């Protein structure tokens, strides 16, 4: 490994060093503020190190990792999200009587796992990253809060996540083993070559389909796509809010990025069977997620179902990955990867914003995740209500927000791929989605008719509100002036081809 290659994985090294530093500090003396500060500094340094990395890219660091623009873009996104969650967690954890510092430790290591996944071009690193992320998430989901009013079932949630996550890892491993048996390689890029050389039309073709489907099923577990979604609402509800936010944003993004790379490199979409299965999963996720979210009164559960639907929208963009490239002499390349990348960016901003508002009004003693807690918020705390409304409208895909541009992109990709059924599902899903997003907004507008259960005014720290402000800007600026962001994403996905 050369010096340059070490420089290329600088973000990974810095994040690792941050977690080690935090751990040593905790061993020496516990101090919540110091742990949070060290974590934040570490994440900022990792972000800063991308300025060193960017000029050197694109380059492979051993056959296991690749550092290209695509990787750098999502590394930035993940590090920013991790930083936001760290900053939002501090006031949340402040009144916890138990140990607070370990949360940051778990958070940094989980971030490390996500970064590995984003850069992997090899099954080994992909699996390693997934496991690092998951194992830390077990801990975060079950983080001991010891309060009656706080997250109610952290243990149940964690066990559920542990068992199902382990099972999905098993699927992935089995799929990998089958592929390895066929091709003798675990490198994404070599798999296609190996296949086309040896087993293109022979009996091995079926192997390839089955193996890929197993791998994809494992990935779908992590993305909580229907019918692999059963763990999602319970885990979201049971986990402490910062952990939920982490799971919902970074957990999903890392997995989705890996999926984009996996699908665009290995060319699984050339198999019609796989494409059909994915299309069915997408339709089920969109309809199922939106329908199940309709009657939820717990916002964590509601957002969990809505995230299922959003992952379904994302899958539509993924299915169209190959649509433009296949035609010989096509002037327009596929919008699929662009749409998926933009949608992921949008999804992180809006989910983080929605969870951020919930974190700001909650603390580890009282989680305010019921829709009734937010009644009349518009008149009690217009600022928070404005942010929450903006985030929900963005999730619903209303213009002036990044969510609309994301949806526009997915629509464009699907039109290009002529996926009319999927488009119809997306329109129906978005229509259903309006009901529950608007229900929350309507509750926030309804004047309060009972004693105030929510001392919203109590939480007035500057930092969380600054984070929310940044998220609001990140929601509106790309929504109004999407041009620059679109060119950025266009540039970023070039490295996939």
């Amino acid at each position: 490994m050369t010096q340059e290659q070490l420089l290329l994985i600088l973000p990974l090294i810095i994040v690792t060093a941050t977690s080690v530093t935090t751990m040593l500090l905790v061993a020496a003396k516990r101090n919540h503020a110091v742990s949070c500060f060290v974590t934040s500094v570490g994440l900022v340094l990792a972000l800063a190190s991308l300025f060193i990395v960017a000029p050197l890219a694109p380059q492979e660091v051993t056959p296991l990792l690749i550092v290209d623009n695509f990787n750098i873009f999502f590394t930035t996104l993940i590090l920013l999200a991790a930083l936001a969650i760290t900053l939002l967690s501090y006031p949340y954890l402040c009144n916890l009587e138990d140990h607070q510092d370990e949360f940051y430790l778990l958070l940094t290591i989980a971030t490390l796992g996500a970064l590995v996944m984003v850069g992997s071009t090899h099954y080994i690193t992909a699996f390693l990253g997934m496991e690092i992320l998951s194992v830390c998430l077990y801990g975060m989901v079950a983080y001991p809060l010891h309060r009656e009013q706080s997250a109610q079932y952290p243990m149940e949630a964690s066990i559920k996540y542990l068992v199902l996550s382990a099972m999905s890892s098993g699927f992935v491993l089995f799929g990998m083993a089958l592929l390895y048996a066929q091709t003798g390689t675990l490198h994404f890029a070599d798999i296609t070559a190996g296949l086309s050389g040896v087993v293109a039309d022979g009996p091995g073709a079926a192997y390839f389909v089955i193996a890929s489907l197993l791998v994809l099923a494992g990935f779908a577990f992590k993305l909580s796509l229907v019918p692999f979604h059963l763990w999602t609402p319970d885990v979201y509800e049971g986990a402490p809010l910062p952990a939920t936010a982490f799971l919902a944003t970074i957990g999903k993004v890392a997995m989705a990025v890996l999926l984009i790379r996996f699908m665009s490199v290995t060319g699984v979409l050339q198999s019609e069977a796989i494409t059909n299965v994915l299309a069915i999963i997408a339709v089920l996720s969109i309809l199922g997620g939106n329908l199940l979210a309709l009657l939820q009164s717990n916002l964590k559960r509601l957002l969990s179902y809505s995230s299922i639907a959003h992952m379904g929208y994302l899958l539509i963009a993924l299915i169209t990955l190959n649509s433009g490239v296949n035609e010989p002499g096509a002037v327009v390349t596929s919008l699929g990867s662009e749409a998926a990348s933009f949608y992921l960016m949008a999804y992180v901003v809006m989910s983080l914003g929605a969870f951020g508002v919930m974190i700001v009004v909650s603390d580890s003693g009282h989680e305010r995740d019921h829709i009734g807690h937010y009644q009349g918020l518009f008149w009690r705390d217009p600022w928070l209500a404005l942010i929450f409304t903006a985030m929900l409208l963005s999730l619903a895909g209303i213009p002036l927000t990044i969510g609309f541009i994301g949806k526009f992109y997915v629509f464009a990709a699907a039109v290009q791929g002529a996926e009319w059924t999927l488009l119809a599902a997306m329109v129906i899903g978005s229509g259903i989605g309006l009901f529950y997003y608007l229900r929350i907004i309507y509750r926030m507008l309804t004047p309060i008719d009972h004693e105030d259960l929510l001392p919203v005014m109590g939480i007035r720290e500057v930092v969380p509100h600054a984070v929310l402000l940044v998220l609001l800007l990140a929601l509106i600026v790309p929504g109004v002036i999407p041009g620059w962001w679109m060119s950025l994403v266009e540039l970023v996905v070039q490295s996939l081809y």
Partner: protein
Amino acid sequence: MIVVWLILTLFVGGALAWASELMDSRLPRVTALLAMLVSLALVLWLYWSSAPAPLSPGGQWLVFEKWPWVERFGIHLQVGVDGFSLLMLLLTVFLGLMATGAAWHEITERSGFFYFNLLWTLAGVVGVFTALDLFLFFFFWEVMLIPMYLIIAIWGHENRAYAAMKFFVFTQVSGLILLIAILCLAYFHSVQFGRFSFDYFELQSVVLEGRFQMLVMLGFFIGFATKLPAFPLHSWLPDAHSQAPTAGSVLLAGVLLKTGAYGLIRFAVPLFPEASANFAPVAMTIAVIGILYCAKLAFAQTDIKRLIAYTSVSHMGFVLLGVYAWNLYGLQGALMTMLAHGLTSSALFMLAGGLQHRFHTRDMGKLSGLWAQLPKMSAMALFFSIAALGMPGLGNFIGEFLSLLGAFQVNRVATIFAALGLIFASVYSLWVIQRVFHGEFKVPGHGHDQGGHDGQENDLSATELICYGAMAIGLVWMGMYPQTFLALSEPTMTFLLESLDGLVSSTALVGEVLP
């Protein structure tokens, strides 16, 4: 730049109105009034100073501006105003002023936020009427939804949550279908010309195959027909109208419905001439069903606002009929109906709102004999009801007559049935007058004999008189000298007809015109 100034005035005015609430709770309405007056001045200035710019692509544009926005997809901030848009802008701003007047005394709670929403809705509508880039158009199309939703959801009547949700879901889902149709066009532009484009003029040159063209056209039609609303997609409208506050109803009936008709004339037909020509008989049938069915439904209502809402759907049928006749009479008739209906329905909704404000009911069964107590209000109600039923000499007659005249040349059967709508209109209009304003005096909460005590002072205030007077003058003007308006829109309509003439000459639409 004037269009940009107009939109900015409304956006900034709305923000200022919200902010000014912090100083004084009466300040927002003054701010909103000022913003409306400034925009009216801008539109009037546009009208007086209109020197056609012959170099612009459409030929007849008074104002035409273009800036790049999203280059990745070839999206531009492209706005233009021709005579047709100008008339729509005039209507929008004028009714915006009326809505401010209607809200003046009615909205007392959270007035800052109310005027914010009011002005932002209008800003969205102005954007819709001027945008010549389909992405920009869709953008404004959606921008006007949220504030309208909030107006219904916050300041609406007893069943507001349901009505607001229904309004939003209908328009949003149809909007998404419209978006897909727009994207199809843009994508096929990229296939045929090598790059994405949302430019109105460039998209006209996209060639789509017959069946596919029909599907994409239907996407546009569904988007616009929901807003219009046309027959099977109209069910959101009675709820939204009856639950919205008066100013909200004025905006909905007067302005928002017209965006649907505008979209049909500006986009749906010119972009898909052949498909529209093939679709015309269906659209005209839908229009006739809407006219007759909703007139009948209107007759069955006891809630005044619901009744007026159904009459709106019925009258919008004439617009649909005129548009799909696709000849000069039909288009001009549709335009005049849009303008005149904007004024009459707004006035009637304001009257219904006035009744509710005074007697706290919209139920016609509980009101009667108001003429003796409220002579001015009753006279106004009679005037606008007569206007709505299409009395010659007032604007609605011109519009409906021209629509029917245009449609008669294309589809006689549909026209004959549609003409029955005029009779139904007289029935329900006069029925309302008879029940509510004639007969024995009765209002809820008062015995028959005590009614006289609080009579006269409840009659129209000066503000209301000015509003109704202005709208009445407008209607008489349209009825007596429609040339003012027709002349302004004629270049646009002629241009649209001529530019498509070559394309559709062989198809059913023109083929059925009598020699």
